[in-house]
């Protein structure tokens, strides 16, 4: 997160503004005083504003995890379901896990609701923190289960492709799902994968590899579908 210079009527005022700006308590901010400010004589003559330079102290990801947890918790209070959100900052993303009664309501058909929550939380987080932080929202271990079943699907399809020597296409998938397919078949020298189609209808096509060469395309596809 960027360093900001903030002005306020008094030092206290400027610090409060900074806390609001970052959505962080005072202890979490690195504050450098540029000008203490003075109220001047009778608060009129020679009044100077206080100026500080502020940067967040903690790792942005930890801050993002806390904020993401707060946003998700707030959204979920409006769904009449007892839920608890756990937050964790992992290497490159924020992981939010919803603990609930396991009805699947928050997952939706093919993870529709879960993906909507994830999209909205990350969108709000980007806006507030002004940094592109990726957010993963999970519940009941859905993401892992989905990955396992998609990997299985990828292997089944590739077996068919190899047998028939004809390309096969998956159903429409979002970028995360496509990425799982690409990655599952990345090591397979006999097939190559490519995404095709526009927007919501984008799918993965699995082609039999031309004999004697394996194109490096699949790896690049996985990267672009992240």
């Amino acid at each position, binding site marked *: 997160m960027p360093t900001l210079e903030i002005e306020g009527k008094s030092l206290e005022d400027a610090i409060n503004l900074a806390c609001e700006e970052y959505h962080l308590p005072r202890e979490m901010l690195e504050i450098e005083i540029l000008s203490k400010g003075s109220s001047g004589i009778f608060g009129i003559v020679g009044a100077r504003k206080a100026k500080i330079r502020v940067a967040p102290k903690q790792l942005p990801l930890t801050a993002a995890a806390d904020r993401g947890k707060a*946003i998700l918790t*707030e*959204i979920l209070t*409006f*769904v*009449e*379901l007892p839920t608890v959100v756990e937050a964790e900052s992992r290497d490159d993303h924020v992981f939010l896990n919803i603990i609930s009664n396991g009805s699947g*309501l*928050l997952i*939706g058909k093919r993870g*529709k*609701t879960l*993906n*909507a*929550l994830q*999209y*909205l939380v990350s*969108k*709000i987080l980007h*806006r*507030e923190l002004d940094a592109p932080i990726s957010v993963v929202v999970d519940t009941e271990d859905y993401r892992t289960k989905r990955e396992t079943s998609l990997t299985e699907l990828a292997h089944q399809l590739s077996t068919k492709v190899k047998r028939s020597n004809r390309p096969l296409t998956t159903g429409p998938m979002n970028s995360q799902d496509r990425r799982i397919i690409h990655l599952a078949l990345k090591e397979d020298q006999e097939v190559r994968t490519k995404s095709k189609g526009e*927007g919501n209808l984008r799918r993965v096509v699995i082609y039999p590899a031309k004999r004697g060469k394996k194109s490096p395309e699949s790896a690049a596809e996985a990267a672009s579908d992240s």
Partner: protein
Amino acid sequence: MLKELVEFMARALVDSPELVKVSEIEGEQTSVLELRVAKEDLGKVIGKQGRTAHAMRTILSAASTKIRKRAVLEIIE
């Protein structure tokens, strides 16, 4: 509850949260929620290819399923 949900989501997305207004028209089974935002913020609640609006509608329908109702989100220009 549904009204507050839409209000919260919309306020978190726009530049002028004070101009977010939601009115709920309750029917027997279906509620219609009308969302009004500042003209400049219209794009923010709709999103690229309507993605944000779509996400809000999905969350709204999950919340309304829980209370055995249907809810429709209308974004009013």
